[in-house]
């Protein structure tokens, strides 16, 4: 697995404790929705960046009010064919104003990167790729025309046609 951000492989500064028994005492940490709901005040009090990992059946609507307090939200793709997180990503970016790191985790494959970037993901926990940077470059250079206005702000064909 490699964490891709801005087209580069970067070190993960967060510890993912979402499936762990105990949450580490210090440092940037990613927790599950259950952990967040249970330990919300304590987590906020520790003063470290907090990330939240949501399963594909957990809509971000559940934490809409907490969005400004989170440094990272990780959305799971349990299978690459499960496309719920594409909607969740747009809601987080376009409706709930999430400005932090939006990370795709789980069955994250290069062939879907293009869609993920368009809906607002900026960090990709990519599975099994020999050269993720090269693959990332291919994925983002496949297309130069877009038809849908989404969170990434790329101008659509319709907007360019009418110079809006």
């Amino acid at each position, binding site marked *: 697995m490699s964490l891709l951000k801005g087209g580069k492989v970067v070190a993960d500064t967060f510890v993912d404790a979402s499936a762990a028994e105990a949450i580490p005492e210090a440092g940037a940490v990613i927790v599950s929705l259950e952990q967040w709901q249970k330990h919300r005040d304590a987590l906020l009090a520790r003063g470290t960046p907090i990330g939240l990992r949501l399963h*594909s059946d957990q809509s971000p609507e559940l934490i809409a009010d907490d969005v400004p307090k989170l440094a990272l939200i990780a959305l799971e793709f349990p299978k690459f064919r499960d*496309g719920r997180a594409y909607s969740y990503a747009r809601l987080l970016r376009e409706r709930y104003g999430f400005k932090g790191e939006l990370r795709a985790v789980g069955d994250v494959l290069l062939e879907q990167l293009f*869609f993920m970037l368009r809906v607002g993901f900026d960090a990709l926990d990519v599975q099994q790729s020999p050269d993720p940077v090269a693959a990332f470059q291919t994925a983002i250079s*496949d297309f130069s*025309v877009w038809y*849908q206005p989404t969170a990434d702000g790329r101008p659509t*064909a*319709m907007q360019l046609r009418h110079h809006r």
Partner: protein
Amino acid sequence: MYRYDEFDAKFVAERAAQFRRQVKRRLAGELTEDQFRPLRLMNGLYLQLHAYMLRVNVPYGTLSSKQMRTFAHVARTYDKGFGHFTTRQNIQYNWIKLEEAPDAVKDLASSEITSIQSSGNCVRNITSDQYAGCAKDELADPRIYCELLRQYSFLHPEFSYLPRKFKIAVTGSPNDRAAVAVHDIGLRMHKNEQGEIGFEVLVGGGLGRTPYIGQTIRKWLHPSHLLTYVEAILRVYNMLGRRDNIHKARIKIIVNQMGIDKYRELVDKEFELTKNGQLKVPDEEIARIKAYFAPPKYETLKDIGPELDARRKTDRAFDRWMRGNVVEHKVPGYAIVTVSLKAPGRVPGDITADKMDAVADLADRYSFGEIRVSHRQNLVLTDVKQGDLEQLWRELFALELATPNLGLLSDIICCPGLDYCALANARAIPIAQDISRAFSDIDELQRIGNFTINISGCMNACGHHHVGHIGILGVDKRGEEFFQLTLGGSSDQNASLGDRLGPGLPQAEVPGAIRKIVDTYLEHSEPGERFIDTYRRVGIEPFKASVYGAETAH
């Protein structure tokens, strides 16, 4: 018709190049078949029983003569010299090699044709009325909105991995020829109380193993909100549709489980938050697309009914064709002609490359170079001068494309079935051939009148059997093929699902059973009454008794 501008052309070329790279990665073993499958499906490439099948879009059933010639070229170069038009107004090639698929896709792209999203769990080809823009009963041209939806849906980053496939159809006429009620979203153009044209929106229709007629989710929608409203429907579906069971994943299941009122509430909530956002369609975009669908340069002509009547009196074959395959045009002096792909004993929807070229030539000479595909698997020349009808008929007749059976019993819808399809339980094509041979007397067919027979080789219902006046479903019973009949289905503005007639019949008994159903209809019908109306009036019992005998009828 719509022509690509610089953006569309670039997009489609980029997609063709991407597909070539994906195939290369698959052939090199860099992608597993499981990873490659959704990618090839979203480019219309299926793995069937004997070979790959490539399904190519005909957006809302409209294509140019140039595009038809490209279809012929692809049929000759990459297939066995023929193609099959489908109930989704697409064309399928049955014998494609994976290695050559990128070349076929590239050749199609050069004529502004794509196979993008002709399969996969995404928004499929947008379908419409084959007479759009020309029909006398039309309120407004649906193609403008189909094109808007086509562009909106292509590689939608949010909706490329929906729970299941998603089909949208649009009709601009109150007489629904696009079967909108059996689509995931059906759009019916109509006027509101203020006289403005907008859309009635239906949701949750569909066939397959759990058929439903679509329900009205919104009575009237302003055209500028078309995309925002469709997006709201799609978003709710994408988040809540079932992902655990492929057979329960279509939108119809969730709509019917939670009820239309609850679904509407969720969609309206979403729509209220987004309706005036970036996706709202500006008037200038509607105007831009509308300009492409400006009517062709019609001559100022008068209807020549009496003259044609005189010709029809002297030539019975011409008269049968005029009665069968020619319908009124909204412009005086013109007519709409259906080119039948249903000659007796032929495979419904199949056409050879040579005939594709011939139809393209006829379109250039007689119909402004444009051809339509109907969801009933025929071709249409929409803008023929009435004065040219007889000559056109002679040429179609010579090509065996003039069988005058539009809307009659041998105008059968038929899926590819077990002759090609990996999902099928039974062969559908031989049943269609048997029936069309048994009912090949056109005078008899015209006496019997309007009748639709729809045949599917399995419960996935690609042949729309639930909505045929007679539906025929192929089933497998311990290794043997049987055919289950349903009666009373319809896909028009009064859509209904057929009722099961009784136990499945072996292939050899099907034409005889159809004969008994027809005889029972003729016995019970009132003068001028169509089969479907007689059936709705008298019910299933007399038909049951005639096919299965009195004892098993109850």
